[in-house]
């Protein structure tokens, strides 16, 4: 069974600085998807970025980028030029590409990010 681990329950960053949230996972599959979701105080679940395991290039979405290390099973999220609106709970998630079943997301426990003005 796949597992996702976020070892940092809480992080903080100064506004305009850069922060990296870590995520490791365990799987025996060779192809899968990885996601970072953001959950602000409103409790919405917002997709931040996704990575396809077969792509070596790290995904980037504006100020958000990932460092995907497939061999190490690591998928960290880097937030550049942090803004107050980035303050949220960040969840790392894994998804199998197995078309048979298990399309559900497997979640880490989340990292609460505080952005200090």
């Amino acid at each position, binding site marked *: 069974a796949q597992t996702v681990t976020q070892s940092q329950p809480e992080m903080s960053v100064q506004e305009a600085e850069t922060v990296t949230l870590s995520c490791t996972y365990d799987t025996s599959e060779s192809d899968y*998807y990885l996601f970072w979701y953001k959950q602000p105080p409103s409790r919405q*679940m*917002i997709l931040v970025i996704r990575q396809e395991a077969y792509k070596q290039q790290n995904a980037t979405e504006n100020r958000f980028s990932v460092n995907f290390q497939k061999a190490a099973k690591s998928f960290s999220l880097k937030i550049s030029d942090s803004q107050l609106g980035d303050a949220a709970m960040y969840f790392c998630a894994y998804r199998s*590409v197995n*078309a048979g079943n298990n399309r559900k*997301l497997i979640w880490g426990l989340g990292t609460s990010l505080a952005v200090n003005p």
Partner: protein
Amino acid sequence: AAGVIQSPRHLIKEKRETATLKCYPIPRHDTVYWYQQGPGQDPQFLISFYEKMQSDKGSIPDRFSAQQFSDYHSELNMSSLELGDSALYFCASSFSNNSPLHFGNGTRLTVT
């Protein structure tokens, strides 16, 4: 762009009552998921439907049932509610394995 729509946004019920949560997926999305998120917890997968058939089952209590209708909307029925059922219930939808899950805004259920 259309998003996943959940109703109601908030629901207050008493113990032993019944609740029905509704979810309208993004058009053309073929899979619907239900998640339960307790305070300070990660979302727990309950159940999913692919093309109106149950595709996967997680930690859904026997008191809960769900279905997906011909118009692809889904309903989560919760009976004999308990205090511990108080949580945020998310519905999400996706199209095939290539697309990420898109979440609705959730239904906050409070059981008193």
